[in-house]
Structures are given as C-alpha cells and as structure tokens.
C-alpha cells in the first residue's frame, strides 16, 4: 500500500497543481475579513466565472484552546469560559457544563425545581435571540439590509431582558452548578411578556421583508440544497435537518430540563434549501415565544434558585464519564465530559453543529455554488467559528 494511493474513492482530492495554473480559474479568499463571512473563518475558493469549482474552509483564527484551558482550572473557574465557546448562544454551553458536572458529582439531585424552570426559560430565550439574529441575517446576505437591522433590534430587546436577569447582555454567565446565579427579578415575567409581544407584533413585517420578498424567494429557493442522505452520514442536526422534512429535536427526543412539561411542535419544512431552513427558523421563533409564555405560566414563584454548594474552591468530583446534549438554535450541542476524582476536569469535548456544517457540509457544497450565494449558504448552515475552535 502506498501512502499516496487513494484508498477512499469518496474522498475528494484537489487537482494536482503541477499541471500548472488553469488560466480560466481565479483563486479567491473569502474571509477572514469579509462582511459576508460568518465570523472568524475563511473559505478559499477556486472560481470559473462566478461559479465555485472547488474550495476548502480554513479555521484557526479564533483558536483559544478552551477545552484545554478547562483542564487546568477548577470547576468553578471553567464556568466563565464556556459561554465564550459560542458567542451567539452562550447559554447552551453553560447548561451543558453545569448538567454534565452535576451528573458526575451527584449534585443534579439537589438542583431546585425553580432553577430547572429558570434554566429552561433562559435556554428558550437564548434560542429565540439567536434565531432572530439568523433570520434577519439570512436576508442580509442577499442585500436586504433592512431585515437584519430590525431583527437585531428585536434581539436587543431580549438582550435587555438578559441584562436584567443575568447582569450581562451577551455573555450571561448565569446557568451554573446547582441552579442559576440569581432569582428572577421582581416583575421580570411581566416585562418579558411585553418584550415577547413587541417581537410578535413585528414578525409579520419581517415576513413581508423576508419570506414574502420576491428577491429572497428567488435567491433562496432551490439554492444550497442538502441531500437527505447526508443527514445520517455526516450527522446533520437542527434546522438544516428539519428543513429536509426530518422531525428530530433533542428537546423532544432526549428530554432534559422542563421540556417534557411544555407543549411545542418540532418544526419541519421540505426542500432542504436556504428557503426551507429560513422557514424552519421562522416557525421556531414562533414556537419559542409560545414556550416562554408557557414557562412563565407554569414555573413556581417561590423556592430557592440554587442548591447549597460546597466550597467551590475545593470542589472535587468522582471519576466518571458522560455525554449530555441540548438543542441549540443551530442543532444538537453536547459535552463529552470526563472527570478523574480531582478538582479539575480531566477532558471535555464540545460536540457542536458548526464543525459539521461549516467544514464538512460546506466543503461538499462548494463545487457548483455561485460565489454570490456563498454567504447565504453559510448563514443558512449557521456556521459559528467560536464553537468550532474551542
């Protein structure tokens, strides 16, 4: 067997550059400094005309080594790190860290009922603000600048609520071992209801601007179609999966927190194109709003919001291994967590949808994609470099 023999015929290799440059081909770096790129990554593409012939993704611009950093810190010190694994949706990783270590330490039995409700609330608020961002952002990639301005404003209303609840707008650092860090402020539910009303009231306008816009429909329909077979092969989750008509959702299939007590629909669409994925997100925005309302109705108002904690400076957790997962706006996120009985994590690994979507799926999708659609494709896959480069 030669090292250079192609063992796996399904694995694309780039054309041999020794053949000399193809005079019809233009090589282009899309990102890392490009307004159309989703965060700190880049895509190197070879074009013929405005059609991408082939391309590769480059990550590494944002590598901070969080997983490794967490092996060197006490459990409590890892807590402020995890939210930074995903800027757009920091609460999922907070929950995963808490849930995995609670499970391994046995603290899970003591997390108060109210804390579980508040966590569910925060997770849905978080999904909602992230979906709003992508919903408008998707239109933005097609030159429809008004839509993202509006949805970012609506998201900002939610960030006001986050600020009131958690003390921070973007990085909340709120869901933690034993529960959450603070109780709901007085009157919070009422103000949050108002915010939901404000968001809901403006959604029809956004539909006019996005889903009902002829420009959007023309550019999103039939574009960026993911074949259904990839779903299982690559492990696609979240809206890209549900836009293939496959009703899978961690919240329903692997229930956690208070989701079993909520009434919600797993939103699907058909077509598996950019339009279908946007439609799924739009429906999920509606679902999240409904779920937040249910949570505010159902959650207990009295009781502690966090378990009594041991001295967090010397907290040790017995050796163990677990995988916990949650449904982020982008798809399934999970933590592989290994502890060794010490006061530090032995190994943690974040399994997020972005690696799948931004590297594996995107690279397969590149050949044949129009360069003008690349940005739209990436946003529809909701690629998030911070979560790849943990």
């Amino acid at each position, binding site marked *: 067997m030669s090292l250079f023999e192609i063992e796996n015929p399904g694995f694309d290799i780039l054309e041999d550059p020794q053949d000399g440059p193809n005079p019809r081909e233009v090589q282009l770096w899309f990102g890392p400094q490009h307004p159309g790129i989703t965060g700190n990554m880049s895509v190197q593409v070879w074009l013929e005309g405005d059609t991408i012939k082939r391309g590769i993704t480059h990550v590494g611009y944002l590598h901070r080594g969080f997983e490794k950093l967490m092996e060197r810190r006490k459990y409590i010190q890892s807590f402020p790190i995890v939210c930074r694994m995903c800027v757009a949706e920091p609460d999922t990783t907070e929950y995963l860290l808490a849930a995995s270590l609670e499970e391994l330490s046995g603290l899970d039995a003591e997390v108060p009922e109210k804390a579980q409700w508040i966590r569910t609330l925060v997770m849905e608020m978080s999904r909602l603000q992230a979906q709003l961002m992508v919903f408008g952002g998707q239109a933005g990639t097609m030159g429809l600048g008004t839509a993202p301005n509006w949805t970012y404003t609506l998201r900002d209303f939610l960030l006001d609520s986050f600020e*009131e609840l958690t003390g921070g707008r973007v990085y909340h650092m709120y869901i933690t071992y034993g529960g959450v860090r603070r109780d709901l402020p007085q009157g919070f539910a009422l103000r949050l209801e108002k915010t939901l009303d404000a968001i809901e009231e403006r959604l029809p306008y956004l539909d006019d601007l996005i889903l009902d816009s002829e420009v959007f429909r*023309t550019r999103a329909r039939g574009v960026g179609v993911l074949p259904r077979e990839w779903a299982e092969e690559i492990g696609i989750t979240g809206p890209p999966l549900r836009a293939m008509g496959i009703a899978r959702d961690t919240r329903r299939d692997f229930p956690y927190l208070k989701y079993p007590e909520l009434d919600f629909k797993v939103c699907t669409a058909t077509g598996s194109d950019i339009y279908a994925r946007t439609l799924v997100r739009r429906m999920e925005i509606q679902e999240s709003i409904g779920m937040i309302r249910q949570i505010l109705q159902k959650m207990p108002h009295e009781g502690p919001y966090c378990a009594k904690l041991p001295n*967090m400076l010397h907290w040790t957790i017995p050796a163990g291994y677990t995988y916990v997962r949650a449904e982020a706006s982008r798809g399934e996120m999970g933590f592989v967590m290994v502890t060794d009985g010490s006061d530090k994590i032995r190994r943690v690994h974040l399994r997020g949808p972005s690696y799948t979507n931004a590297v594996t799926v995107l690279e397969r999708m590149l050949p044949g994609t129009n360069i003008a659609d690349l940005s739209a494709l990436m946003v529809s896959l909701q690629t998030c470099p911070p979560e790849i480069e943990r």
Partner: protein
Amino acid sequence: MSLRNVIAPFSAWARAFQKPFTVPQDSTHRPGAERYRGWHINDTEKCIGCGTCADICQNEAIDMVPVDEPTKGDSGLRPKVDYGRCCWCALCVDVCPSASLGMSSEYVWVDKDPDVFRYIPGVDKKDWDGDERGWRKDAGYDLIDHERVPMPMLEPEEERVKTWAEVVLGYNEEQARKEAARCVECGLCIAACPAHMHIPDYIAAIRDGDYERAVQQIYDNNPLPEMCGKVCTRRCEGVCAVGVNGDPLAIRWLKRFATEQFSDFDQVLSRDVPQIGAGRKVAVIGGGPGGLTAAFYLAVRGFQVTVFEALPQVGGATFFGIPKYRFPLPSLEKQVKLLTDRGVKILTNHKVEGDEFKRIQQEFDAVYIGTGLLKPSALRAPGEDLPGVMHAIDMLIDHHLGKKVDVGESVVVVGGGNVAIDAARISRRLGAEVTIAYRRRLVDMPADDEEIEDAQAEGVKLITQNIPLRVEQTPEGKLDFVWGPAEMVASEDGGRPRPKLIEGVENHLIVDRVIVAIGQKPDLTWLPDDVAEGVSNKWGYIDCDENGMTHVEGIFAGGDLVNDTADAISAIADGLKAVEGISRYLGVDAKVRRV
C-alpha cells in the same frame, strides 16, 4: 413571481414614519440593569484582604496590593483589578467572604491612557463608588460554605456530669475532610496564631486525606498539638475569613483530628534535623507548654535539655488545671512521650529552689524559666479566710493530684474565665449545684463561648453583674455569699466598661463552698533574691527582649509569667522564641526550620 411578493417588502417604508428604536448614545446614557456587572466597587472597611477574590479569578485579573499595615484579621492588602484581563464574570463578588466586593452598574469609561484601567476599587476613587445598583452578593447563592460540620458531643447533656469522659468526641474522617474543604486558604489565621502555625497547609493535607503530612506541618511549630487541638483558645478562628459571615473553620478540631490519627508520632516525624546544638546544655524550669516547647525544639537540634518540674507530671496548667473531660491524661502522655523519645530529660517532683538555681546556672549554658502563675489573686472581701472559701487553682491542683476535694452540695464560683468554668464543671461532676458569679456582662466573659455553653448545658447557673460584698458563716455551718448588683459604666481610661456597685442592695446565696477564680499571679520566691529582682518587673512578671531573654544574661523566660495573653498557645509561641533566642545566644544558627 407573484405581485404580492414584489410589493410586500415595501411595507417596510411604513416604519420610516415611526419613532426609531435607536438612541443617540451621548444624549441618553442608559443606566445598567439593577444587577449589571460593571466596574468593581469595594467597601474597603469591610474587606479583610483575604485574597479569595484573587484566588478564584481564572483570568488572574486581580492582584492583592498593600494599602495599609496589617492588623488583626486584616492583611492590609486590597484587590486591584486589571480590566485588560477581567471578563466581568463576578465570581470574585460571589466568593467574597466579607461581601465587601461588588460591581457597579456603570459600564462606560473612556480614557486615552490604557494604564488607568487598572485600579484598586474603593481606594482609587471612582464616580461609581456610591452606586447602589449593580451586581452584589446574594443571600441565595454562595461559592463558599459558611456552615460548620457539627462536632459530635457526649449525649445526653444531663449525663455528662456523671462522668469524667471527654465531652467533645472528635470528627470522623468524613466529617473532618468535609470541614477542611471549607477553607479558603487566606492565611489570616497564620498571622493571628501566636505560634504562626501552618494552618491552611495542614487543613489542605487533611482535605487531601494525607494525615501524615498534616501532622508534620503541625509539628513544625507546635509540640503539643493534640492539647491545642482540644483546648486551644483558637485566636485563629476569630479572624477566619469564612467566619466573617458564618461559622469559622473548626481549626482547633481539625488539628485534633489530624493528631488523633496516630497513636505515636515518632514514626511520622523526621529525625533528620541538623544537630547544631550538640554539646550545649539547656535547663528548663517548669514543665508547662512554654517549657516543653523550648525543650523539644532544642532537643531535636541536638541540645542536651533537662526539664525540672515540681509536680509529678509535666504539662503545667494543662495537666493540673485543665480538666480531664477536656484533655485526657493519655493524650498528654502521648505527646510527652515524643519529647522523651527525642532526648528531653524530664525530672518530675523536682522543685527548683534557692541555691539549686545557682548550681543550674553554672552547670547549664542557658536557662529557660516557665513556672507560670500559681499564686491565686485574693477576693478582697471580708470573710475570704473562712473555712469553705477556697481558691480554684488550689482546688484544681488537688483534684488533679488525686487528692479528695470536698465541694459539698452547693458551690458559688466567683470569676468569669476558663479557670472559673473549669472549677464549676468539676464541681458539678463532684456532685454540687453550681452558680458562677461574674462581675461584668455575659458578653464580657473571657471564657471561651463554647465552654460557657457547655457549662450551662451541664446545669451550671450563671449570674452576672454582681460584686462580692462579704462571705459569712451561717448558724447551720453554711456560707452566706453576699453580693450587690452592679451597673456597667464607661471606664476612665477608655478601656472596657467596668462594673460599679449599686449601693444599698444586698443579695444572699447560701452555699457550702465559695470558690474564688479571679486570676493568678506570678510567684518568684523560689528564685534567689538577686535573680528574682534582676528578672522581674514591678508587678512581679518577667520582661523579655525579642530573643526571649530576660534582663539577666543567659536566663530566658516565657509563658504566663511573661506574656499577657496567658494561654497555652502563647506559651508555646514564647517557647519557640526562646529556642531561636537560646541558639543564637549560644552562637549557633537559629534559622533552621523547626523540627
């Protein structure tokens, strides 16, 4: 293509006529939320400089910098925050044991000079110092554990007086390790401990389950740790950071736990100590904690040490004073065994007197005096010489030497210190009804809080704010303890409030015995006059320099005779000081690690 889809996006124009969501920043500075995590603030009066905030900060954004002289329970350091590193997580706030640290709701701060973004909150004045809003510690959430693991005690309480068994039972392994895990390792306790024991280190060793390491750390500067683990006055616990808003670490009980894990310390402790004292002879007069400390650490360094003790057993007041239900004899013997194992020569029943002292002075290269306070202070009330009126210290010595002590059926103990409590609890065990009569208020009592509680649990009654007027004999052969009520008045010299007799009222307490426990004084009559005069000050105590040496060359001293704190650990600290002083005096390097 449908016409509706072409027209739909133009509906956005309607918004052009509505009020915009956006606001111009300069004209509308919106305050941060009620619990916003903005720039830090610190109540520097409440802050104790424990550095726990700096410990927890995973960004190492906090430096502890000196801003003041250290005082009891305050390191004098204050946190300085570097905003080039801070991630505004507020873990520092949530862990702060004193709840002094907070964050303001202020988030805008523009400056051309990057260096200003490093400041000491509360010390470097900022506009937001008085901000009521912002992230503060919340009652429902804490990163440290303020609740002590309860100590198992001999139950039921009423039965305790029927036995001389130890009342405090000690932690088991699980309890000890749980309690040890509460420590935040600030080290304020080290400064408060007269002997500066390595407290956080041995607590950490207990937490790790490494009890050998714990005992090694402990023996580094305390040769009677099991005694201290049972009866220490625990000045350390008074400054414990965790105790600022809760129960301090049970430092004393943890030390006790560590030492109780070994029946003999010989195997645990290294003998590999440079023998710098070889060929030099030191005499220790008085086998109390101070003397034994000096003897041990000198002996392990090769000095030839002889301890002269008047009583049949060394230990000093911890032997003849402290009751066995607090500090059992086998525990003392176990610790003394290590001393003799390491070469300390102990001569008991050997009271040094008169000329013998001169002989000792000649025979030995240095002498340490630690004979304590054995002369009781007088009641200074008529009737104190009546039969049935006795001094606590004499009664305790008799009791511990196995003599029969008759306290009758009822006793009043006059005093409020540990000696009074011990006399009272012993009297209860000897079968008497006991009342303690104390001059000041309950809060002023010098006795340990837990001791007072235990005494009350055992049925000792307490009356406070009273002045003994006289003791009279009743026709029935009992004693009438006559006292007048007192009010607390400010003292002229600015000291603690003192009791003043309210004239004209007399109360009577008919008892079999009156036990006087209002303090002891030094008694140096055993020393040759010239030496006694040379070493003592006008109150009869001994003054020493920083080497523990008296005004007479070659004579060192320590313990109750010298310090004004008069407890075992202070005597041990004096003993340590004398070890360094004596070795320096004898021309050998004193800077070796102890043990």
